[in-house]
Structures are given as structure tokens and as C-alpha cells.
């Protein structure tokens, strides 16, 4: 007799009972005095060398950018948002998209009001989604960029994400 094969053995829908929204009223609890999100509007003045790094990345001179970045990142003046952004761009240049997204997530989540780097981070996040075959996430990111940063130069490139 021929063998019997199991077809569609797992018919379970994905289980996710974690509430969709945080509806609970927050009871009294001691919260550490650590700021949850950095709220500066625009990053402090950045060392020019970091802008050179950004320029080298744009010119696809990744190795030079990486070498310069390793030196420049040690300076005290570098803003964390910019460092995360540049780390993401370097990772992207090497095709390390997961690592790039992790850095971009830091900019978007932790430094969400940084007018210089937050919109740029959103654009590249969307670009990664587009390049890695996640069009819906790319579209959503473009929408956030357009809605959230209408005054930013990056919205001119938002169409690239759609």
C-alpha cells in the first residue's frame, strides 16, 4: 500500500491574545526617573566629520566611511541619534538589513522628535522594507513620513517608497 501523507497538519490560527491596546488604567507604581524618550527637537551641533561619513556613504565609499566613522564616533559631540542613523546606513551599505533596521528603530523610537534624523531614519526604514519585499510596511512608513514631517526635505523622496 502506498504511504499516507499528512496534508495541512497544523490548522491552528496564530494565537495572539495579548490585548491589542493598552486599555488599563495605570495604577500607582514607582517608575525610575529615566527619561523614556529623548525629546530634543534638533540634535546638538554635530561634528563635521560625521557629515563627511554621511557623504561617503552616499557616494558608496563604504570602507572609507566605516573607517572614518570608527574614529568619529568616539567624539563626545556626536548625538546618539546621528550615530544610530549612520550605523544604520553603514549596515545597509553592507546589506545587513536587520542590523540597519535595529539602528533605525532606535532613532524612530527613542529620538522620535529629532527633526534632523528622525525623518531621514523613516525614509531609510521604508527603503529597506521596499528592497526586502515588504511593500505594506514601506507604504505605511511613507505615510508616516508625509504626515509627520511635512516640512522635511525627505518627503520629496517619499514617493520612492510606494
Amino acid at each position, binding site marked *: 500500500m*502506498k504511504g499516507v501523507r499528512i496534508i495541512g497538519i497544523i490548522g*491552528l490560527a496564530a494565537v495572539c491574545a495579548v490585548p491589542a491596546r493598552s486599555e488599563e488604567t*495605570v495604577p500607582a507604581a514607582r517608575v525610575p526617573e529615566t527619561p523614556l524618550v529623548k525629546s530634543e527637537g534638533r540634535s546638538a551641533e554635530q561634528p563635521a566629520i560625521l557629515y563627511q561619513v554621511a557623504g561617503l556613504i552616499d557616494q558608496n565609499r563604504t570602507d572609507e566611511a566605516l573607517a572614518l566613522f570608527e574614529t568619529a564616533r568616539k567624539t563626545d559631540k556626536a548625538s546618539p541619534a546621528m550615530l544610530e542613523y549612520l550605523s544604520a546606513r553603514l549596515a545597509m551599505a553592507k546589506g545587513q538589513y536587520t542590523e540597519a533596521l535595529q539602528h533605525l528603530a532606535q532613532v524612530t523610537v527613542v529620538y522620535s522628535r529629532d527633526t534632523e534624523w528622525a525623518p531621514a531614519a523613516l525614509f531609510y526604514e521604508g527603503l529597506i522594507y521596499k528592497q526586502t519585499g515588504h511593500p505594506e510596511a514601506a507604504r505605511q512608513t511613507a505615510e508616516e513620513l508625509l504626515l509627520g514631517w511635512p516640512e522635511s526635505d525627505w518627503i520629496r523622496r517619499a514617493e520612492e517608497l510606494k
Partner: protein
Amino acid sequence: MKSLLNCGQIRRLCLVSAVCCSCLIPALFAAEPGAVQTKATSVLVQEVQDLLAAGSYKDAVGYLREILIRLESLTDAESVAARSSCLFQLGECQLRSADFSGAAASFKKFITDYPRDAQTPMARFMVLESYARQNDSAQMTAWLAELKSSGAFAELIQFLNDKKNADFRRNAVLTLMTGYAKLGDLENLRAFSPFCDESVTVDAGFNMALMEGGDQAFDKGNYARALVLYRMVRLKDEVLPVYNKQVVALETALTQPLPWVPLNERDHQQSERQDEQDRLEGLKQTILFYTDTGYDQDLMVRKAQCYDAMQRYRLSVAAYSYIYNRFPEHHLAEQCRASAFQSLLSLDDQDAALAAGRDYLTRYPNGRFEDEVTVSLMQLYLSRGELPVVVELGRHALEVLPNRRLADQITYLLGITLLQQQNWAPAFELFSQVKEKWPQSVYVQDAAYWGSMCYLFEGRFKEAIAAFNEYLNNPAYNPSRFAADASYRLGVAQYGVENFAEAEGTFNKFLKLYPDSPLVSEAYSMLGDLRGADGELDRALTFYQKASAKAVDAEQDSYAVFQSAQTYELQKHYTEIVDLMKAYIARRGVQTHFADAGLWIGKACKAQGDRRQALTIDLQMLSDFGNDPALSGIDQIMMQILDDVKAKQGADDLIFATTRLTEEHALARQKNERALALRLTALLARLSGESGHERYANELLAEKDMAVFSPLPLIILAETFAARSDAENTGRIAEEFKARFAGSEQLIDLLNIEASACLSAQQYEKTIALTEEVFSRFDGNPRAILSRKLQADAFRLSGNWPKAVETYQKVFSTRTERGALTPETLYWIGVCKREQGDIEKAFAFFQRVYALYRSHPEWAAKAYEASADCLQKLGRNDEVIKTWKEMVADPSIQNTPEGLRAVESLRRANQG
């Protein structure tokens, strides 16, 4: 907000009303007391003044309306001024009494009636405020558009910019912004944000409104808008310093004694102080709220949920992990860990998800989401085939809390897992439990079906027939999720009890009822098997053809194709077999079962006396599909080519194969098909023997990208390094092989090569460890005897003679063609015995080698020499001479190093 009707205006109103009194119709005074229409205007004015002072704005509305009616026909300047003031006051009272549409209408009438009045810009703003209070964004937007088109917008902005209106602006802009925030109206929020000072942006009500607006946008699926609104919410550290400063200022003011005021103003003064006291309390409450709640964390969770909904899972993971890493004791940390786990699952970042899920269960053994995390983890492990872990997780969860919330689901998943482990009876038991313990569970129907399948898999066909019939006839399972599958399986069970007629009927019924089922192909194959078994080969072939046509995957197609081939073989239709396989390969491409297809082609060609055709087709398959280094079927085809060429041992076939391979190799290089080129290089290296091996090995060494290597090229590369006693590089290749081809049949060869390299490098412990790995992974594989020999060598070379002998003897425990391994093993046992001082036994082993395995002169020669040595040690010198003479007399031995030494020994003995 204070009354906008100032003292001067009231006085003016009173004056106007006094003027009016003289000319009002007497009928008004005849009205009933209490009804505004019946009251004298002066009374109305006095009473409305009192009402306004008492804050009874709703009651004041009627009075103001009546006054407006009485002033309507008067056209003198003062009356007009009084009327404008009254109309504005009416709008404000309506606003204060929550009659927003009425207020908007009053202010609009004011603007129309008194376009040049000083209050008009404010009235324009009040219209907006009325709509904002009404949460009517459409009206707000329309009004702003109207202002823009009429050119009044600039005036409105100018009004807001006027420093004189700072106090008003703060209140008004706050009202507007709060209204826009609640509506999630980003465009208008932006338009008015330049007028927001810090007191507006940190206002608790405004921030709550932003949250509310964000929530509403989220609920409507406008996640980007929700995120932008959430981002505008001020955080605790931005808000608290402002509030603390205000508290200090208020407390300082409240500690100051009240200044003297006339007696009639004392109440008002007290009221103002109470207002300030209330404001202070309110501020303290707000500070407490920001300090003691998880305000910021809650906001972050909302953002994370937006990212989840937008499928931007890396960001949601970052947001969730930010909370639980920075605030591990916060009550939201648990939820965030569970949510991050789900986000990682959505990302299909399995390793990270497993770590996160495990971490959650360790941290929160009785956590709120323990059931969900357990079930999701079980599913993930199940999908990875890590079945023992699924069982461990499920069993542990049910032991700790048998009636947990998702116990039915966990039990069902356990059943599915045991089913996959082929533990039919325990799986059946679990499915029965689901049906009995949780009859309302959504998994009951699934459990019933899979329970029936357990019987089928177990070969308990009668029980399976009963179970499938019960499933199919149970009205509770309507709509039935497995009706088609169960119908087909019923036929299989009937086939199992050899009730072929009934089975055939069931398959036909199934095909009629469920023509679109993915099992249709299998049903046709079963019908083919039934007809074939009855000798109706042509009908069988027709069914197999239908099965192929209806196949939904390569498995179903392959089954039908190979059954057809078997049928053709019975009919001796070999050309059809070759054509069938060619069509199958063309149809299925990389999904082809290459090894089986190659075998059938070989068999059919051999039967037709055309072996070269088989070789040609194999080579074609290799060149068509060989550029994928991970396609294991092609590895098998390569082995078939090697076996085929070697088995024929004909120079023509070797030349033919080598020529074709060389041509394909050049073509692959030209097309930059590097993986294919490497496969071909490896085959050429194998076929060229010693002569060309070096050249091809160097080609393999020149390729630096390990990703294009398939198993055979890696093996030849490892052999090359091992031959150079380069254990390090051999190990590196072995690691690459294990990482990418852990399931390859050739892994055992690679482990043997690695063990051999380690042995040459005197790394005996590693040799033993590697050979143990072979025994644990490839128990019973004939090629493991080489591993036994290598392990024994390692023991011998490390001086562990008893263990070496014991291990050498295990070489003989596997029944297989051992070739030169037998004399070699016997020889080394002899050596070990000699080292242990057991010369007689050693001699016996050496004797066996040259007596029984003279066809392996390299070992026979060594054994002869070792025998002579033993005989010398035993003092049997005559036999020593005899042994040397035998060596010298044997043409296959006399020229070996041992043979030449025997000649020399004989010469010396003769001289002596």
C-alpha cells in the same frame, strides 16, 4: 473664561434699555411674572446682569434673546452698539451652556451684522471654538476655508498674534488645539501650533486629547496619523518641570495675605482665592498623575502597537524592549515581553522569538500571557520539527495547571506533536481528551479527525473506518472542515482491510463530491494501484496520468510518475519510461526526485542496451539544474554518473563522460555558473584519478566563495587539505559542510576525511571524538567501518593497545565489502598484539594477512616482514629464512620495500 460683557457695556445696555422703556408697548408689562417677554427692559437688563454674575449663562440666554428682539428695530448708534454687545454676549452664554451650534450661529450673525466691530476678529475665533467644542471638524475646516476665501484668515492670525490678546489666545488656542487633537486633525493642529506657548503644550487636557485622537486614529486603522499624534504628546520630563514651577508660584501667592478690598468686593476676592486654591490642588493632582502612573510607558506601548499594526515589527520590538529593559519592574514590562515575543514571531526571527518566549516563561511562571506564549512557542517548535521540546512544554504547562485557559489548545497541539512523532496511541488519547474534557472547544472537530488518522497510521483500519464514518456523519461537525480529507482517508482505510471494491467506490465518490480537493491526485493514484493490482495495466496508467495532471505538489506527481514507470516496466515499454521521465523532469524542474528519475532512466536504457543514453540524460540533468549548490538530488545524480562510468570500466565511456564534462565545464565557466562549474570540476577530479587530480583540486582551491560549493567539491577540497596534513583547513571545510549540508549522505565521508586529517596531525582525541560522531549519526552505515579503523588507529598510536584491538575487531562486525580494510585491520591487530608481547598471536594475525589477502600486496608484504620479525623473537630462525624466501619468490611482493629488505636479509644470512 470671564464674562465678555464689561461694565461699560452693561451701563450702555442699561441706558439703552432705559431709553427703550419709554417707547415699549405696554402689553409687555402685562405679561406673567417670570416670563421674559412680560418684563420691562430695565428689569430684563438688571436680571440678566445678576444671572451673568451668578454664572447662570443658560438662563441668561432667554433674556439676551428678548433684549435683542426689543432692540431689533432701533437704528440709532447706541442701540446698535448695545445690540452688537448683546449678540456677542448671547454667543458666549450659549458657548458656556454647551449650545455650541447656537453659539456658532450667534457669532456668525455677529460677524455678518457687525463686520467692522472691534469684536469681530474674536467672534471669528469664537465660531471656530464653538465647532471645536462640538467636535465638528468638518464645520471647523469649512469655517477656516471660508475665512481664507474671504480674506479674513490673516486677520484672525493677526488677532492671535496680538500681544494684547495673549491671555485670550492662550485659552482660545488651548480650546482649539484640544478640539483638533481629539479629532486627530493634524493639519489644523499644525496651523495653530505657532500660537501655542509652553503652557498649552504641557496642558494635561491637551495631551490627553492628543492621546485620545491617536487612539481614535488607531481604531480607524490610521496608524501613521496615530503615531504622529502620539509623538506630539509631551512626556513626563517635559511636563513636570513646568507644573512644578507653577505650583511653587501658586503656593507663594497663596501664602501672601489678601489685600484690602471694599466690603462688596470681598466675596469676589474670596472666590478668586478659592479658584487659585482649586487650581493648586488640580496641579498637584496632575503632578501626581505624571509621577505615579506609567504615563510615558503607556504612550510607548501605544506607539509599539501602531508599529505592529503597520508590520514594522523591528520598531515594535525596539519599543517594547525599551520598556522592559529600562523599567523591568514596571507593570507593563510583562505585557511588553509577551508582545515583543509576538512581534518577533511575526518577523519570523525564530531564534530571537524562541529566546524571548522562553525568557517570558522563566520570568513569569504564572504570567497573564503564559498560555498564549506557551501555545505560540509550541507551534514554533512544531514548525521547526523540534518535537521533544513541544512535548516538554505542553506537558509541563498541563502539569502545573491542568485546567488552564488554553488547556484544550495545548492538549490538541500535544496530540498533533505525538502524531508527528508517530506515537499514535498516546496522540489518540490526547485527541479523545480534547473531545471529552472540552466539548465546546473549537478544536473538537480537528481532534476527531486526527484521532481517526491515528487509527489509520497505526494500521487499525477497522477502527479507522468506524471513526471516519462517525466523523463524516456527525451533524455537530457542520460545516465540516475535513469532510473531503476524511472521505478520501476512509477509502484508504477500506483499502487497508483489503475491501478493494468498497475502497474503489469510496474513491470514486470522493472524486465526484470533491473534484477540487488537493487529494484528488492521490485518489487517482489509489485507483491506478487498484486497477494495476488487477492486471489492468492500461487503465492503471490512465489513472496515474490523471493523478499527475491533478497533482498539487511534486510529491503527488512523483508518486504517480514512478508508479507509471513500474507499470511500463511490467509492459516492457522502456522507451515510454525514458519519455515519461524526461517529461517529468521538464515539468517539475528543481522539484524533481532526481535520484529516482536517474535510476529509472538508467534501468530503462540498460534494458534497451543503450547505457550511454542514460549517461547523456544524467549529464543533461546536471547541466540544467547543477548551478544550485543546495539541490541534493543533483548530488545523487553526480554519484550515479560516477558509479555508472566506473561500473562500465570502458575507456570509451570514460572518454565520452570526460569529454562531455569538460565541454559543460567550459560552458559553465563562460556563463559564470560557478556552482555548476565546481560540481563538474569535482566530477572530473574523481574521474581523472591521480593524473589530473592536482589540477582540478587547484581549481577548487582557487574558488574563495564557499557559498557556491556543493557537497562533492567540498569533499575533494577536504581530501586535498587532508592529503597535505592540513588539519586546520580540513576542519574549516568540515564546519562549512556541516553548517550547510547536515542532512547530506556524504557527511559521513567528510567526517572520515576530517578524522583522518586529525590522525595525521597526531590529534588522537579529536579523531576519537569525530569517529564517535559518525557512530552516533550513521549507526549501521557501511562507510562507518572506515571510522572504526581510524578510531582504532588513534588508540593504537596513543599506545592504548587493548582498546585499539577491541576497536579493530569491531571493523569486522559490519557485513559489507571492506576491500583493503580487512588485511590492513588484521595487520594492525597483529602489531598491537606484538606490542603487548603476545608474539604468537601477533604472528597468527600476520600469517592470516598474507595467506588470505595476497591480492593486497602492500599489506601482505608488511605482514610477511612482521611475521619474520615475530619468528625471530620466537627463535624460529629456519622459518624466518623460509618467510624471506617466500617474499622474494612472490612477484607482487619482491619489489615492495619489504620485499627488497627481505632480499637484503637473505643475502646477509647466506653470507653469514
